[in-house]
Each structure stands twice: as structure tokens, then as C-alpha cells.
């Protein structure tokens, strides 16, 4: 404990803060939770270095904590909140948007208030709830968007459900526009994404439609089921003027449509998550249910398009789309197994992996997990500046290792055994150290 209260001196650390367009190596001290920094030069190191917990941080990066745009909590209980919080701070995520799909649903102001109260942490807000766009997320009736906004809902979405009905979508959008909150859509045309027999039993699609689904005998979801909804929504976004945000872009066609819409000046942003720029449908060849995701993993052409869309800024945000599932729901035949995977603990390294794949700057990549989400949701993230409270993470961008599911606190991961680089070593929130492995650096 004592150690943590000592002032800290971080020597030769590379500070990257996208909100100030700052990327510079410097020496930093943190005293009583307050940052002071110095331009880098030996003489600026404080004379009384022995009073500090002094760490050589050459080649390490200090940046604002990750703002994870979309996370499923599953249930607002102490256990879930603690697990998620611990997994997050260890992994460098210091703010996150909580999706309304949980037990009970966040589709009314009382539940929003309850979640905010329950999750207030370190005198700082850590969890930012979305409100359900429609009652019970069923896509039929508008939820109490105004009342939810009043108590702190940061945006609206029915995720993982997609609002199918055009009129409902129009109404939700016009309300969200009035409240100046974004509307997030997980685009998937439900009627295209499965098989309906005449006795009106529907079989949900299980994976991307193509050669692999044909070989495996699984029900395919055509990739156009995604872009069809986006194209419709864009017309409605134009009509209503709302800030429309597409969640989990997974196909090449969707990227093309969004790119065009941006050129046409429509208020649109979008995100994707690591599975869609790291993996493709071939992973499912052994019926491994940890790859059962929504939207489904697409083909290699789509994967490359998603990756390129991150580099050319068509995709604004990278999020974990964290949806932990118990192993019991995954050790089942593919059709019966649950959909979703954990992601918050692997978000930073998988995102940093992108840096090796292009000449994209690390600043630009960090923007997509810090500044851009905060802009979308209009939630300020603290700057890294002298006399500001310490709110940041310190990570080694070069450390290489294999993701090991046994070391993760949430499950399942589709990335077990995969080589990545980049590891968080320290998280500070509101002037306090909340995760500290820095002596291992």
C-alpha cells in the first residue's frame, strides 16, 4: 500500500494523447494523483529522485484509458460488475458503454439509474449505460428515450437485436435526434438471416453463408443481410438528421456504403470489433463454438475490407463487443450453443496488432479506442496534462505473447493460442492506481 502512495517518476515514457494530438517522449511525475510533466531531458529529472518510485519507461506508451464503446454486462449484480471491472482495468479499459441487453433489460429510466448507482467506481464513472431504443428491445414500441436520457443514458440501441420495422426506426431516430443522442444499430435483416418453413418455424442463421456453411451443413446468413439494413437506415438518418452509428461492421459491402454516405455528408459513424478484422469463417471448420458470433465471421475478402476500412478511417471505432458466455452454453452442438464471446481483455493487443499490418500511426489506432468513442457519446475523457488528475494506462506496445484462455477472467475467447503484441502494465483512474504491474516491466 505504501508503495502505491509514493510519488511516481516515469522516465522517458512516450506519451500519446489523441485529444491533444500529442506524441512525445518525456519524463512524468505523479504526486498525490496529479500529473506533472517535463520535456524530455536529463536535467529535468527531479533532483530528489530517491523520493520517487522511479521507473524507466523507455519504449513504453502512456495514453488515455480505453473507452470500450459496447460491452454486455449480462446482469447488474455485484459479481458481474466486479468481474467486468477487474477484467477491464487490468486490460486498460477505463470507461465503457453498457448495452441494454441484460437481465433486467435497460429499457427504462429506473434500470438506467440503478446501473449507474451500482457501478460508480473510484468517484468516477466507469460504466455508461445505453437505453433500449424500443420496449423490451423487441422493435415494436419506442422506449422512454427522454426519461432515460435525463438519468444518464448516453445513446440508444436494441443491440444485439436489429430494429427491423422501418416506421419504428424512423420514430426512434427522430426522438434520438431531438435528444441529441446517437442511435446504434446492429444491422441484420432477420428475415434473410435464417430459414422459415411454412409452418412458420424459423431456423436462425448460424454462420456466414458460403462454401464453409455448405460444407458444414449449417444455416447460412448471407452477407447482404447486413448492408440492406444499413442502406435503409441511411435514408432514415437523412430524413431525421440523427447521428446514426452502425455497430459491428463485418462486410465489404457495408464498408462501401458507409464510405459513400460519409462523402455525402450524412451523420454516420461506425465500429467493428477484433474478430472481424482478425478472423474469417474458416475458423468454424471444426464446429468450434467460441467462434459463434453475431454478426458471423465473414470470408477473407470481407476481413481484409474491414481491416482496410480501419486504416482509411471509414471505420471510426474499434470496440470489444464483449459478450461473455458461460462454458456450459458453449459446450453444445453448434446450433444450440450460445452466440457471443468475451473481448474486453483482448481488445488492446488485438488492436495494436494492426500497427504491423500497415503504416498506420499508433496515434490513429489509439484514437479509435479512446477519443472517437468519447466524441460519439459526448463523454469527456481526461487529458494527459500537467496539473490534471492521473487518468491513463501504461502499456508495452512491443511485448509479444500468445493469448491464453486460462489467464483470462472472462470466457470464451476466439483468440486462444494466437500471437499478439501489446500488454497493459498500469491503469490509473481519477488519480489512483487501480492496476499496477509496472514493476514487471
Amino acid at each position: 500500500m505504501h508503495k502505491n502512495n509514493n510519488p511516481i517518476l516515469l522516465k522517458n515514457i512516450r506519451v500519446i494523447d489523441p485529444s491533444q494530438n500529442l506524441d512525445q517522449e518525456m519524463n512524468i511525475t505523479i504526486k498525490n494523483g496529479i500529473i506533472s510533466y517535463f520535456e524530455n531531458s536529463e536535467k529535468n529529472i527531479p533532483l530528489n529522485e530517491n523520493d520517487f518510485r522511479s521507473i524507466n519507461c523507455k519504449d513504453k506508451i502512456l495514453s488515455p484509458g480505453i473507452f470500450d464503446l459496447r460491452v454486455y454486462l449480462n446482469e447488474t449484480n455485484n459479481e458481474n460488475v466486479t468481474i467486468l471491472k477487474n477484467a477491464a482495468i487490468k486490460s486498460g479499459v477505463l470507461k465503457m458503454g453498457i448495452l441494454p441487453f441484460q437481465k433486467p433489460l435497460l429499457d427504462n429510466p429506473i434500470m438506467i439509474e440503478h446501473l449507474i448507482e451500482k457501478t460508480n467506481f473510484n468517484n468516477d464513472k466507469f460504466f455508461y449505460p445505453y437505453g433500449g431504443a424500443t420496449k423490451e428491445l423487441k422493435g415494436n414500441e419506442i422506449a422512454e428515450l427522454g426519461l432515460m436520457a435525463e438519468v444518464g443514458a448516453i445513446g440508444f440501441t436494441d443491440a444485439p437485436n436489429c430494429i427491423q420495422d422501418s416506421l419504428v426506426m424512423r420514430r426512434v431516430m427522430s426522438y434520438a435526434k431531438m435528444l441529441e443522442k446517437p442511435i446504434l444499430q446492429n444491422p441484420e435483416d432477420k428475415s434473410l438471416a435464417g430459414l422459415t418453413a411454412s409452418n412458420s418455424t424459423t431456423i436462425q442463421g448460424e454462420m456466414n453463408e458460403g462454401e464453409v456453411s455448405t460444407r458444414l451443413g449449417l444455416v447460412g446468413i448471407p452477407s447482404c443481410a447486413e448492408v440492406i439494413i444499413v442502406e435503409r437506415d441511411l435514408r432514415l438518418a437523412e430524413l431525421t438528421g440523427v447521428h446514426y452509428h452502425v455497430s459491428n461492421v463485418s462486410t465489404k459491402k457495408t464498408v462501401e456504403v458507409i464510405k459513400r454516405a460519409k462523402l455525402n455528408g450524412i451523420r454516420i459513424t461506425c465500429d467493428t470489433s477484433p474478430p472481424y478484422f482478425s478472423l474469417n469463417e474458416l475458423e468454424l471448420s471444426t464446429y468450434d463454438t467460441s467462434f459463434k458470433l453475431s454478426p458471423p465471421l465473414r470470408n477473407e475478402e470481407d476481413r481484409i475490407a474491414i481491416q482496410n476500412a480501419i486504416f482509411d478511417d471509414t471505420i471510426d471505432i474499434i470496440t470489444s463487443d464483449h459478450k461473455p458466455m458461460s462454458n456450459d452454453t458453449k459446450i453444445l452442438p453448434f446450433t444450440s450453443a450460445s452466440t457471443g464471446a468475451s473481448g474486453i481483455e483482448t481488445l488492446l493487443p488485438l488492436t495494436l496488432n494492426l500497427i504491423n499490418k500497415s503504416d498506420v500511426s499508433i496515434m490513429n489506432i489509439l484514437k479509435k479506442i479512446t477519443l472517437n468513442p468519447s466524441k460519439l457519446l459526448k463523454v469527456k475523457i481526461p487529458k494527459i496534462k500537467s496539473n490534471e488528475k492521473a487518468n491513463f494506462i501504461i502499456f508495452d506496445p512491443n511485448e509479444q505473447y500468445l493469448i491464453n484462455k486460462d489467464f483470462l477472467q472472462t470466457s470464451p475467447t476466439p483468440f486462444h493460442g494466437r500471437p499478439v503484441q501489446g500488454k497493459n502494465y498500469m491503469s490509473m483512474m481519477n488519480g489512483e492506481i487501480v492496476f499496477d504491474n509496472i514493476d514487471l516491466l
Partner: protein
Amino acid sequence: MNKIHKINKKPPPIATLNSKNLLSIEGMNKLEINSLLDRADYFADLDPLKIIKTLNGYVILNVFFENSTRTRVSFELAGRRLGAEVINISVDKSSIKKGESLLDTANTLSAMKPNLLIVRHPESGAPKLFSDYLNCSIVNAGDGRHEHPTQALLDALTIRRRLGRIEGLKIAICGDILNSRVARSNIHLLTTLGVEVRCIAPPTLMPKSLENLGVNCFNSLKDGINNVNAIMLLRLQNERMSGTESPSKREYYRFYGLDEEKLRMAHHDAVIMHPGPMNRGVEIASSLADNEDRSLIKTQVEIGVAIRMATIEAVYNAQK
């Protein structure tokens, strides 16, 4: 009576498999497939009373999560003829409703130390899941829309015995290919053995990118069966024939039901096959189904037992 073509004069050895499981035809090579066909060919002509019961004490559980009569009886008879103990377990929906997970059921059965589980399940990939967690051998007796390996093997042997060869033939598979595990197993098996495979289905029942599996796809039955040596018909389920995948039974029959007239497009002594149970007047004209010169439907069932004997024996051998 049509002549039966025999490829082997001497009794062939026990078939060799590269795995102790038979989960799919996809991934099997020509040698494995032919060794199963040769051995089954030999069993098909043996007097059941003269078969040496080499599998005394071997325990087989027939675990069927889906109704089946012919496949279950066929496996049971095959096991018994080899001297194994065969126990049938119909896992009815109630035990699933009680909340027991599939793996719990499997582990319970496994605790009784069977040597082989023969699994039929309505979900694709379920036998693979069993094989990942259990030590005994697993034979797939049909999983969802995925595969039905022994059906494809018995189809191939039926054709070989009738036409004398498989390689170089033209064979059409016609019907609900999208939902058919029989079609998938047959596609993999026939393409592996060098058959020109033609898949015929209305566009709504044709799976995406099927041609990547090495077959030619046709929407027209007449074009598809042009000069083929064998036609494999697939069952079309009733619920798919009233405005969903097909507009009506009569429209389906008009374009895809096999009758004497359409059959003229095929090779002059082309044979007709069906995995059963068939819908007379939907996939096939009733008179054709009963035409013993053309229809091998009964022979398929006979050969089924021999194929399953060869399979059980090969799996037993691979376990050693």
C-alpha cells in the same frame, strides 16, 4: 435379374481407417473408401449364419436423438452379425427437456464403457462434439444437414455392384440438397472416387457455392440428368412444399419429379436410387419406384447392413 459385378475374388482384408471415428466422408481418401467398399462387398454375399463373430464382447450403443427405423436397425443388425452387443438408446426429447446437456448424456453413457457410439443427431457437428470429449469410437449415423457417411458408402457400393465401376461415371443428385446430409456425403464420396457429379435442385434448395465442392449445378432436371448413369433422388419434406422453398407439390413434381419421360434423358440403363423414405408422386413417379430394372431402392437397404458391418469392424480395428 441383373448381374452383380464383383471386383474381388478373394476375401478382402478388414478395411483400414485413418481414425477410430467415422464422422464424415469429407477428409477420407480413396484408399479408405475403397477398402470399406471391398470389405462390405464381401459381407454382402456371405451367408449371415457363416460369419465368424469376431467382435464378441464389443459393446455398441446406438444413440439416436432423432427418429430412425432403417438406419438404426441396419446398424443393430450389422453389429449383431459380427457378434457385438448392441444396445439401442432413443434419447427422447424428455431427457433434453429435463435440462441434461448433451455432454452430460454422453458422459453418462460413456461411464458404462461402451466401445463404440453410433450417433444420430438433428444438429450438424454433434458427433464431432462427442468425439472431442469421449474416449470411445464414434460413428456418425447422420447429423443435421452435415453428413450421413454410411449412406453414401452404401450408395456407392450399390452402384458398383450394379454398374461394375464407379470412377468415370456421371451421377446426378436431385432434390433438397440444401437440407440434405445424404447429398453432402455423396458429393464428397463420389468426387473423391472420380465421378462427374451433377447436383440438381430448384434455386431455393441449392446451397451457396456448391460448385466449390467439385460438382456441376443445374436447376433443370432434364439438363442435369442428360446421359447420367445413376440418379440419386432426395426426400423433400412436406413443410417445404407449400409456398416456401417450393410453391406446391404439383409444381415440384412437374419440374423435379422423376418420371418415365424425363428419365429418357439419362443413359439408357441409368439406375435410380433414393435414401428413403420416399414421397411417391413428389420426387418420383410411383411406377418408377417399383420398376426393379431401374430402381435400386431395395438393394440400397440390403447393402446398408454390409456397409455398416465393414464400418464397425474397421473402427474396431483402428482402435487397437
